[in-house]
């Protein structure tokens, strides 16, 4: 997002449209430079006849090894007495042509075969992948030398052969991209809509594949230029045509007589390849900003509410219950925002709440209400760019907002611990469960043996029947419910006083949810933990919470003990929220046979 535009309530401001990628490249100075250089090269190649002052092939005795600055021959002459500038200009023709030819051939072979292999799979995929592997394992230069030996020094034939050798690079790229996009639901929807496979590929798959292919092609073009120049340098080119590679070869032969002659073709090759790489990188950056994938729900941030930074706080409800037990968590007038230059999108505003030992506070609201942002602010784990702008967060009386980063981190896993929403993505698939339990305990000073023993106890405590087996398992070997139990074991391993659970049962099946809720209830009562339970599920709130804070648009609109909130909601929004549960709605009235032929006739 640029600093000039104020933040808008919808998340990404960057467009993924067709024009915006070009616009982004134009804005990137390096890519723009590369693009301009390439365009100039193409113009030079096209108008070589007009631009070149002399015939590139005509030798002139007086010009043999003439130094740069010779009248009418600004770059001098080569060992055979030919004008270097003219040769350079004409050389761009064959160089660019050969790069275009190699890339063109590899695109024509690699892209369609990759699309078919990725989309249909099966036999074609098996055969094409095998061929691609074979081609990739053959040494390129040797094949090219063989081609030249067989067909003579024709650039067209050599570069066509090189294009075939490059094709597996594109094939593999396109195939993997196609496989990735094939499972997107919109492809399934297109199939159900009655689109033919060709149409689906042309419309949906090609769009995703297009950008990586262009990027890869830019790199391949650079490689083709270098390889082609290398062959020319070795004298394997057509002597009847001026190319940059053969110019270097010629200059090399007279290196001691005319040392500067080497510079010009060298610079030309270097600049062209660099320009291709810059354009490729610019494209990559532009595409990464505007990926073809839809943002997933779990990555979404709370919708931002643009509020001028000076707005004063109004009297918001404060979630403090009377009663025994010291305060474990107290949040006062918390404001969390994401600054963008002049303006700040405030996602949590004037939130105050408190939890006593042994108490469960539910924080409910719909997506974008700021409930998760509040939880992350308390943990000190706000996403990049997020800041606590005002207010204080007291854990056991200490304001953690003012603590140094290191001391704050030390609280996590000790005084405060956390249970996430998606158990599976919070376990590292590369390590055994046991190790992921033992390691945090070891950072807290336990020896390995003691930590291992404790891990077994914890696994048993969270209701895992065979702790040994789970301890030795990898995350993919256990179910989602089991994974959540493991994370709960991890959360209680540091004997926390405050447990923050962010939608702890949302990703679970309803029967598993009931078990995990029962487990949380038992642990909370046994350990007298203070719990902040972030959820959108009012049933979970009714099951577990002592009191409830309802959030809307970053503010707490109502706080009440749980029975009071459900029995006598005061705020309109709370009433609306309670009203939208489907728990007590009547079942659908009985089915009636629709009238004969109502909407059957098609327009």
């Amino acid at each position, binding site marked *: 997002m640029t600093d000039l535009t104020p933040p808008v309530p919808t998340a990404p401001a960057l467009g993924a449209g067709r024009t915006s990628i070009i616009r982004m490249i134009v804005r990137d100075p390096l890519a723009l430079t590369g693009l301009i250089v390439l365009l100039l090269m193409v113009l030079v190649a096209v108008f070589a006849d007009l631009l070149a002052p002399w015939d590139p092939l005509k030798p002139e005795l007086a010009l043999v090894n003439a130094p740069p600055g010779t009248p009418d021959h600004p770059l001098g002459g080569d060992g055979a007495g030919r004008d270097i500038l003219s040769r350079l200009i004409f050389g761009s023709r064959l160089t660019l042509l050969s790069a275009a030819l190699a890339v063109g051939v590899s695109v024509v072979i690699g892209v369609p075969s990759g699309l078919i292999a990725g989309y249909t799979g099966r036999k074609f995929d098996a055969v094409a992948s095998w061929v691609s592997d074979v081609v990739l394992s053959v040494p390129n230069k040797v094949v090219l030398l063989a081609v030249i030996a067989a067909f003579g020094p024709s650039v067209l034939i050599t570069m066509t052969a090189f294009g075939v050798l490059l094709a597996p690079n594109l094939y593999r790229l396109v195939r993997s991209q196609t496989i990735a996009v094939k499972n997107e639901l919109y492809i399934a929807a297109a199939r159900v*809509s009655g689109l033919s496979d060709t149409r689906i590929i042309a*419309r949906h798959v090609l769009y995703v594949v297009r950008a990586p292919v262009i990027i890869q092609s830019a790199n391949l073009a650079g490689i083709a230029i270098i390889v082609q120049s290398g062959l020319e340098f070795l004298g394997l080119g057509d002597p009847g045509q001026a190319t940059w590679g053969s110019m270097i070869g010629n200059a090399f032969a007279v290196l001691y007589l005319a040392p500067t002659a080497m510079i010009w073709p060298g610079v030309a090759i270097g600049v062209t390849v660099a320009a291709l790489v810059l354009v490729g990188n610019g494209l990559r950056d532009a595409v990464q900003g505007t990926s073809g994938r839809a943002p*997933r729900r779990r990555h979404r941030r709370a919708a931002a509410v643009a509020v001028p930074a000076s707005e004063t706080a109004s009297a918001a409800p404060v979630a403090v219950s009377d009663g025994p037990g010291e305060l474990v968590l107290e949040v006062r007038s918390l404001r969390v925002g994401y600054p963008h230059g002049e303006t700040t999108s405030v996602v949590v505003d004037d939130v105050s709440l408190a939890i006593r030992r042994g108490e469960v506070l539910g924080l409910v609201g719909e997506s974008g209400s700021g409930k998760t942002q509040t939880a992350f602010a308390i943990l000190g784990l706000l996403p990049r760019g997020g800041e606590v702008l005002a207010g204080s967060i007291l854990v056991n009386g200490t304001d953690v907002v003012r603590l140094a980063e290191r001391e704050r981190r030390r609280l996590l896993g000790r005084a405060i611990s956390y249970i996430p929403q998606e158990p599976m993505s919070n376990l590292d698939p590369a390590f055994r469960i046991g190790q992921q339990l033992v390691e945090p305990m070891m950072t807290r000073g336990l020896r390995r043996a003691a930590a291992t023993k404790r891990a077994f106890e914890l696994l048993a405590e969270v209701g895992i029947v065979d702790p040994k087996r789970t301890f030795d398992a990898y995350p993919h070997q256990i179910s989602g419910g089991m994974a959540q139990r493991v994370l709960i074991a991890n959360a209680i391993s540091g004997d926390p006083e405050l447990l923050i659970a962010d939608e702890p049962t949302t990703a679970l099946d*309803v029967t598993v*949810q009931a078990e995990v809720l029962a487990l949380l209830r038992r642990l909370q009562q046994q350990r007298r933990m203070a719990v902040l339970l972030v959820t959108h599920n009012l049933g979970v709130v009714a099951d577990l919470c002592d009191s409830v804070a309802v959030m809307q648009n970053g503010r707490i609109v109502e706080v009440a003990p749980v029975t009071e909130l459900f029995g006598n909601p005061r705020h309109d929004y709370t009433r609306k929220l309670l009203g939208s549960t489907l728990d007590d709605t009547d079942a*659908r009235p009985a089915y009636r046979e629709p009238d004969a032929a109502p909407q059957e006739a098609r327009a």
Partner: protein
Amino acid sequence: MTLLEIDSLVVEYPTRGFRSQPFRALKGVSLDIRRGETVGLVGESGSGKTTLGRAVLGLSPVTSGTIRFEDREIQDLGRRQRRELARDIQVVFQDPYSSLNPALTVSDILSEPLLAQGTPAAAARARIRELLDQVGLPTDAGDRFPREFSGGQRQRVAIARALALRPKLIVCDEPVSALDLSTQARVLDLLIDIQEATGVTYLFVSHDLSVVRHISHRVAVMYRGEVVEFGDGDQVTSSPEHPYTRTLLGAAPVADPARQRERREAREAALAGTDGAA
């Protein structure tokens, strides 16, 4: 009058490894749906409910059994015939984020099925305006991209796409599971209104009994690839006969602390009872 009849349907997926047993996702499922009816399909993950919906759509491989639509067996149609069936059978998926191509405008998305079936461009444009109106989206929504809409609005776009060809059956695969509570209720009511106006038939797949109860005339409960209970929606979702359905009903927490406590205690007692028996 029966629109869709599924009989002893078996779906198997091959598993990795030499001579390994295939995974049987559906173990002989039978179900029927009448014209203009909503049949709710409820179950937990791995129960096969989504596989059944996908089999009707031709997206899952059918090993044996039949799916009869109107008077025609559709379980092993060729691709071409399947494409023709797109006029009659459509889908709304769960995830409103990945079910719409982010690169296409809403108009492009909605015109896709129309153009694929050979509707002229002018007629397609008129139909798109009609569809946007039908699902309660503003007329200018057509020029915008999916990312400019909230989850609920995206799901309306997906519903409009499903309606574009005036299908007889729409398979709704967890269409409201990714939505907020208040949005959920609105989208469900939209689906009911559309059904009453057009007489379309729904196969409604969901894990949530209360959602299924709200929209379904009849409910089928699935467990491990089998339908364990199938009957009147009200009866199945309030006084079920099968023990598994009862477990399912008892497990979902209700938004009422006092009643939830009773349910919890009943459930704990039941669990203690089975533990004692075992």
